[in-house]
């Protein structure tokens, strides 16, 4: 009984309620003619699309930089990667690989500056990250209009300059990961093997990094910066590394998202990319300064599960689409919960 109580307090009521809610949705699904196999197919697809973006939270959380509300910065690097790769006329696997390479390059540069900035504003990271993310999105919007892109697939036809709001990846690398080794069970279930594998590889990468000397130092910085300093660690350097890493993951994450979605979304699209990712990792059990791979996987499954199931099931039950409102309440409620939760007494 006591252990159960302890478990509940550790895990947190909101997570339990949301998990129970999701389970009940799955149980309710057959009764309202929602196909479970379609739902699962959908869920895996969404999981693969978003998981890397959620993973991009981990390094920064681990190093004590807080929740990465500056994810749009990584997204911008990703957008630059894919647009430049298209501009070069690359397609298929080569195009995708080139996009990743360019995106990582930009992410490194942006992440480095961003990390330096965050080092100077310790304690206020989250709010500043949010607005740095926002203003860079707005700034990029100006650049999307001004940059001399030429590729006819991307440029507004009538004006002859400025990028379109959405650019189709058809013929470039649409579904390149999704379809790799994908298999079908029954009529409605498709497993996006390639995308999940890709996520697994990235996960392994992050996990490995956390097991190196630098990764260990990073975790220590997040756990107790004073301890780390006393152990001769350059705290700021570790934080910068984590921010660069997070930004690179964000860049790769948006590329994975795009190839599954089939489109590149420019201009205002990256604005609210951070919030679902933040909510997902918190839902998975992470706190403001501790996160693991398990948190990422559980959180993304739960969060995307809610997003997949509520439109279909709730729609059938209530004859109305409340998924958007539920998404807003769940995601922001989760962030709020994490922010206001009195952290375990550590003094």
């Amino acid at each position: 009984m006591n252990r159960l109580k302890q478990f509940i307090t550790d895990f947190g009521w909101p997570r339990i309620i949301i998990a129970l809610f999701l389970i009940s949705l799955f149980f309710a699904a057959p009764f309202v003619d929602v196909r479970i196999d379609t739902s699962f197919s959908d869920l895996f697809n969404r999981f693969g699309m978003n998981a890397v973006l959620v993973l991009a939270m981990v390094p920064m959380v681990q190093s004590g930089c807080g929740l990465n509300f500056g994810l749009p910065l990584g997204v911008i690097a990703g957008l630059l990667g894919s647009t430049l790769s298209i501009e070069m006329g690359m397609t298929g696997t080569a195009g995708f690989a080139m996009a990743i390479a360019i995106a990582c390059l930009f992410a490194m540069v942006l992440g480095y500056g961003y990390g330096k900035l965050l080092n100077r504003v310790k304690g206020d990271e989250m709010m500043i990250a949010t607005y740095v993310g926002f203003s860079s999105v707005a700034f990029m919007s100006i650049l999307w209009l001004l940059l001399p892109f030429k590729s006819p697939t991307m440029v507004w036809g009538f004006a002859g300059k400025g990028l379109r709001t959405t650019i189709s990846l058809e013929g470039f690398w649409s579904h390149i990961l999704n379809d790799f080794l994908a298999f079908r069970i029954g009529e409605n279930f498709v497993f996006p093997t390639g995308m999940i594998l890709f996520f697994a590889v990235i996960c392994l990468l992050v996990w490995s990094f956390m097991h190196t000397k630098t990764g260990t130092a990073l975790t220590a910085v997040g756990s107790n910066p004073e301890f780390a300093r006393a152990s001769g660690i350059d705290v700021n350097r570790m934080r910068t590394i984590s921010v660069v890493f997070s930004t690179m993951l964000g860049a790769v994450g948006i590329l994975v998202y795009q190839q599954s979605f089939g489109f590149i979304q420019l201009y205002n699209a990256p604005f609210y990319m951070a919030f679902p990712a933040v909510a997902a990792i918190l839902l998975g059990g992470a706190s403001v300064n501790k996160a693991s791979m398990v948190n990422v996987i559980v959180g993304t499954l739960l969060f995307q599960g809610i997003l997949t199931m509520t439109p279909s099931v709730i729609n059938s039950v209530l004859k109305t689409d409340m998924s958007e409102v539920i998404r807003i309440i769940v995601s922001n409620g989760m962030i709020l919960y994490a922010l206001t939760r009195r952290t375990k007494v550590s003094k």
Partner: protein
Amino acid sequence: MLRKLFIRILLLGAVVAFSVFLFSSGKGHTLLLDNKTATMGGHEHAAVSAVTVTVDSLKPVKILPGERDLVVVKGVHHRITVSGAGVTVEKRFELPFEDMFLCSMPALLDGDDAWFEAKRPEAPKAADDSNKEEVPVAGEILPL
């Protein structure tokens, strides 16, 4: 302490009373001024020749036979002056809590007390909703 509670309750009461006053005095009514042959309160009144109608201190409106005009007034107490067919009738009246009233000028001129009656506005036509504007995307950044 009791005194403070008393004052607070009193003040709250005053606010509620004030709200009621605002509600009744600010309630908007649409008066459909009719100069048609109409049956009001069981009597039939034939349309009269052009009348000039003044409601409260609004601009006078001229209504030809068979025509209709509308004015928007607010509050409960109103005054209407109708001149036409050689007579001028001035009447003070009170409006109940309804949005729209059909006022028959002939009935008024005939001195019928039931010269106005509440009218439910028709439901907006389904055609209005052809644009599937609805269910907005929350949190979207507005074009500034």
